[in-house]
Every structure is written in structure tokens, then in C-alpha cells.
């Protein structure tokens, strides 16, 4: 009798849980990437040192999904993340359509470079999908090459440059010597910074191209002391996307001047040493899951999933149109773990957000810095503001 009662009790306890699970509707988020993406090939030095090892940011999306499980419980949803790797950029759209047709997926995180993102956004223009750029900082995607179905979670190069320029302006290190490498990506960094310097009243006293060589005939371009001898400057901005030259610039300059940009003080979406606004908890969760430190694209992947979950919460709907309208609307107050509530700029679909300025082991400042004002939202002091936007959807 007693055993039967216990059994009955157990069944009663189980029932609501089982019923709850059965009632949960599935909602899946897509994740697209490209096989052999050169951005994830480690940059090696000839001595076997790895200068850069960048891991795919999928772990960020996984971390966000994992931390949304109780939200899903409260929403009565089962959240899923479906990952697809396209063999080439050209097959990305087909991969997205396959996921949409098989699982009804209409929101995708996309880890691809500018050209691949643009081609994908164009191919899916009439497919009622929303694509979240989690790793490409190129400004052109926020300017003339913007697309209505392409949302940028990762900050633009202009935002990163503006954050740095604010820092230098506030420190009153206004005379800047720019050292620029030979790669196209180096020119992108230098150009973005030049725009930011103009915006915040810094003076670029010279832009010098460096080369990675030991050739004595080229010493004017490969010797850091000679490169930094003149003209007089307060700070060196280094545009070196590869990193081999740049790592020898700090402490080698002719004058005792700080180095910023690609070395020294760096502007970024995220850093493992960020210790405010809940960041330690996020960093610990990510490290536990991924076994490494969280970087910019990891953070952006995490944020993209959390943005979609936020839309599910606030709309109480899984309908694509409702979710897209909420995300693009002005009611969004997204917790980016960087203080100010983040939301998408309607003029170019860029997530407005603070930018961190970090050294190798500390976050020195969070931009926008104190004193930089804006008529509507101080976050819009970073990046391409509405009046200067050339984006037309």
C-alpha cells in the first residue's frame, strides 16, 4: 500500500515535467561558416612560434545557448543551434536554404569575410531571413555595401578606430605617428584610424610604411628607431595585421612613446580581463565551456544568440517578422555585458555598443569615454553616425 502510494506520488511528480517537455516548441538558430577560412589558419613564425591562433567562434554561440536553457523553460521552447560548414563561399546560400527548409530556420549567425557575407545577403535577399555578422569588421558593409538582411554584431573598424581616437584625445596625446604594413588589411586599419583621428581632432604627423626585412638598403623602412625618429609625435599608431613586425615596435622606438593599434593598447569588442558589468561571469562560463579565453568574434557569436533569445522573450513569439521587427526597433535594450544597453542602428544595422581598450592583460578603458557627448546616444560617438551614413537599404 505504502509502496504504491510512493509510486503514485512519483508519477504525479513526473507528470508535469513530461507534459512540459512535450508542449515545448522547437526553435532553432543557424550557424554558417566556410571550410578552410583563411582567417583561422594560424599565423606562424619560422621558429615555430605561433603569432596568432584564432579559433572559430562557434563556442560563443554554444555558450549563449547553454545559458539560455532556463529562459527556454520559461518560454516553453526548446532552443537549438544548427551548424553548417559550406565548402566554398558560393555554397553558403544553399546551406542556409537547406536549413530553412529542413528546420524552418530563418535567423543565422554567419562567420565569413566581407565578400562572402555580401554574396550571401544578396542571394537570400527575398528569402525572409536575418543574417548576423559575427566576425567581419569592414566598414564598407556598414556604408555603401550595407544590406537590409545583414545585422552587424561585431563592431566596425570605424567604431574601433573612434574608441582609440577618443582615448588619445582625452589623454592629450594628439600628435600621432602611423606605421603601416604592406598588406591590404594594414591599409584598412590605417585608413579607419585616419578617419577617426580627423573626427576627434588628432593630428597624424606622418604615415610611414614599414617592411619586414633586414635589408640594410631598406633601413629607413625596416628599422623601428629610424622609422620613429621624426617628426615629433606623442604616440605611435601601428597598423600591422600580421604581427611579426609589430611585436618588435614597443620599447624600440627612438623616443619613449607609447604604441597603440595592433600592439600595446588595442581596441576590441571584448577581452578576457574585462571585469565589470557581469563580464567575469561571462568569461568564466565561456572558458569553462571552450577551454580558452573569449575573443571578439566569440563574444559576437554569444551576443547574436542572446539577441535572438531576447527577441523571443520580449515578443513572446517565434514568428520571423515579429522577431526581426523587434530586433531592428528602438525597444531593444540588450545587455552586452559592457554597461550601456546595446541596440541596432536603424541606418546601417550595426549594433551600437561600448568598445574596450585593452593591453595584454588589462582593460585600460571603455569607450565612449567620459566627456564625449552625442545628441541622442553617446554610443553613437563610436562609428558611422546617421548624418554621415551612406547606407541605403
Amino acid at each position: 500500500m505504502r509502496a504504491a502510494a510512493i509510486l503514485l506520488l512519483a508519477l504525479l511528480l513526473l507528470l508535469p515535467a513530461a507534459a512540459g517537455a512535450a508542449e515545448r516548441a522547437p526553435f532553432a538558430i543557424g550557424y554558417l561558416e566556410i571550410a578552410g577560412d583563411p582567417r583561422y589558419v594560424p599565423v606562424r613564425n619560422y621558429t615555430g612560434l605561433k603569432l596568432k591562433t584564432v579559433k572559430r567562434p562557434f563556442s560563443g554561440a554554444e555558450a549563449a545557448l547553454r545559458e539560455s536553457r532556463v529562459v527556454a523553460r520559461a518560454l516553453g521552447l526548446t532552443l537549438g543551434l544548427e551548424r553548417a560548414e559550406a565548402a566554398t563561399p558560393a555554397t553558403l546560400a544553399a546551406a542556409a536554404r537547406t536549413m530553412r527548409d529542413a528546420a524552418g530556420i530563418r535567423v543565422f549567425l554567419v562567420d565569413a569575410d566581407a565578400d562572402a557575407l555580401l554574396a550571401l545577403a544578396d542571394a537570400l535577399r527575398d528569402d525572409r531571413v536575418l543574417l548576423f555578422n559575427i566576425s567581419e569588421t569592414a566598414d564598407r558593409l556598414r556604408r555603401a555595401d550595407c544590406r537590409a538582411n545583414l545585422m552587424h554584431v561585431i563592431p566596425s573598424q570605424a567604431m574601433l578606430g573612434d574608441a582609440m581616437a577618443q582615448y588619445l584625445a582625452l589623454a592629450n596625446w594628439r600628435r600621432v605617428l602611423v606605421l603601416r604594413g604592406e598588406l591590404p588589411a594594414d591599409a584598412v586599419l590605417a585608413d579607419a584610424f585616419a578617419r577617426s583621428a580627423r573626427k576627434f581632432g588628432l593630428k597624424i604627423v606622418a604615415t610611414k610604411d614599414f617592411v619586414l626585412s633586414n635589408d640594410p638598403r631598406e633601413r629607413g623602412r625596416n628599422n623601428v628607431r629610424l622609422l620613429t625618429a621624426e617628426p615629433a609625435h606623442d604616440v605611435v599608431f601601428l597598423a600591422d595585421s600580421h604581427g611579426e613586425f609589430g611585436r618588435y615596435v614597443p620599447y624600440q622606438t627612438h623616443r619613449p612613446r607609447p604604441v597603440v593599434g595592433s600592439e600595446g593598447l588595442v581596441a576590441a569588442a571584448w577581452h578576457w580581463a574585462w571585469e565589470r558589468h557581469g563580464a567575469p561571469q561571462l568569461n568564466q562560463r565561456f572558458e569553462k565551456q571552450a577551454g580558452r579565453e573569449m575573443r571578439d568574434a566569440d563574444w559576437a557569436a554569444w551576443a547574436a544568440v542572446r539577441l535572438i533569445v531576447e527577441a523571443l522573450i520580449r515578443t513572446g513569439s517565434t514568428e520571423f517578422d515579429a522577431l526581426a521587427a523587434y530586433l531592428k526597433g528602438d525597444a531593444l535594450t540588450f545587455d552586452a555585458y559592457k554597461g550601456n544597453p546595446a541596440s541596432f542602428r536603424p541606418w546601417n544595422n550595426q549594433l551600437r555598443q561600448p568598445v574596450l581598450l585593452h593591453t595584454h592583460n588589462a582593460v585600460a578603458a571603455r569607450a565612449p569615454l567620459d566627456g564625449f557627448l552625442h545628441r541622442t546616444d553617446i554610443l553613437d560617438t563610436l562609428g558611422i553616425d546617421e548624418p554621415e551614413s551612406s547606407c541605403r537599404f
Partner: protein
Amino acid sequence: MTRIPPRCALMYCALAIAAVPARAEPSGRIYITNEKSSTITVLDGRTNAVVDEFETCARPRGIHFNIDRTQFFVGCADDNVIAVYEVATASLVHRIRKMEEPETFDLSPDGRYLVVSNEEDAAATKVNVETGRIEGEAELGEEPEGVLFTRDGSTVYVASEAANLVHVINFADMAVRADIFVGTRPRRFALTPDEKELWVSAELAGEVDIIDTATNKLIGDILFLPPGFRREQVTPVDLLITRDGKTAYVALGRANHVGVVDVASRKIVEYILVGKRPWGLALNRDESLLYVANGLSDDVSIIETKSRKVLKSVPVGLVPYGILIDD
């Protein structure tokens, strides 16, 4: 008063605690946890001068009395420990170990249990104060934060910062009875004295949301905006409601003010300028003084509640968080 040896085995301590008389003489001390320097600052409650600062476990945050106010608990997130101190002497009595990142907690009204929010574990645990054992757990949203018991001890509310949820938990079996979506980044609670309304601060929404405890539905909100500030600069965290249920105090974080609210009309009646990023709040026994922990200016502001003026600000340790007043 029963003397408690500074170092004792857990079981022996439990016996010692049981033998303590009902209510100890107040020491007049004020304890402040400093989460970055991992210290506790002690103020003399009469002079508000710093009389001591001592090392405690790593990243101390939440601080609470035990039932008869002879001891207090300190949650240390980086050591996964709740340390128990004697109030009168500030000597360490024992440690409750194996707590996953305890941040804040509340004591059950019978004094026998703590419900602890485990920030990293996305759970709230029910800890037996005497044995230090975990006797129950509720699975919650990420970064659970504020914990608050109802007076009868039947229900405990826990906020999940990252999930934007308030969880209503049945204390006996730690079953989640309801999940309530609130504004972005919910942090702390206050109940009105009649327990009809639960007030919860939503840090990133810059507001306090009001929940009807009978229906578990949101019935109102109060948006804070001190003059000269923008919405994104207002980040409310701790809040208190006075015993008469008339006034609420809300620490507004980066807005560097404490908001004073008339509870009945839900109108903001004053903003009091304090130090940088105030979070923790505590009222003294007769509610004449409000203590405010300013996390980013490393000091405590002391407000006279009658005049709503800051009387004094006292430098303490790095990133002060919680305040406990033994008066």
C-alpha cells in the same frame, strides 16, 4: 554570552551556536565587505570612523546576520566559501565550504537555512546553517543574484541577471513555482511590509519592476532618471523599503545617486547624490541613517534619512559591496 573559540571543528561550533542566548548586546559595529581587496572594513557606528579592516576570503560580497545576530555570514565568490564570523569580535567561527560562487543569500526566517545564489552554477542552493550541508537546489537562469524570503519562509524569490527572470521558489522542496520575465538584468528585491508587492531592480532597464505576489504578474514599474542623466547611465541595484512601508530607497549605480520613492504613489520624491556607482544599501535600526556602498569610489556615504542629506563619506576598502549594521 557564550564564548566561541576562534578556531573550532564544525560540529563543536554547531553546539556552541545552539547554546548562545537569544539576543546579544549590539556591538555598535558596522561591517562592510570589499569585493576587490577581499577585506572587511569595520566602522564604529557612533562615530562612523574606521576602526578596523581585516582580510577575509576572496571576493566577499553578500553579508547577513544569523537569527540572533550573534554571528554573520559572508559569501566569498572566488573561494567558494561562506565564512561565519562572530559579530562582537569579528573573529572567524567557521567556513561553509563547497559553495559554488556564492554571491548573495538570505536567511530563512527560522534561522536554520541560507538560500544562496550560485552565480556560476545557475542555481540557488538551500544550505543548512548548522551542518553546512546542501539540502536542496533549484536550477535557475544564468547569474542568479538577489535572494529574498517571504516572512513565513514558504517562498523564496531569486533574480537571474542574465536570464531577465525572477524565479518564485517553493522553499520546502526548492521547486520553481513560476518564472517571471522582468526588465533587463534584474538584481535585488524588496517586499512591501504587507508582502503584496515585490519590487525588483532591473539594472540595465534603469527601472524597478513591481510584481503582484498573488498573481506573479508585473503590475508596474518606476523609471529613474536623475536630472542631467541619460537612461543608459541609470543602473539601479540595491533597494530597501522602510518598515512602515512608506519609503523606498534605490541605489542607482552609475547615476551616482540614491532614488527616494514614495511607495504608495510610486513617485520619485528625491535623488540624493552619493559616491561613484552605489550598489549596497543598509538602514540602521531606527532608520535614521542610510548607508550606501559606492563601489567605484571605494567609500561609504552616510545619509540622514530625515533631511535626505549626506552627512559623511567614509573611505573603506576596494570596491565596497555589502553593509551590515549591528546596532
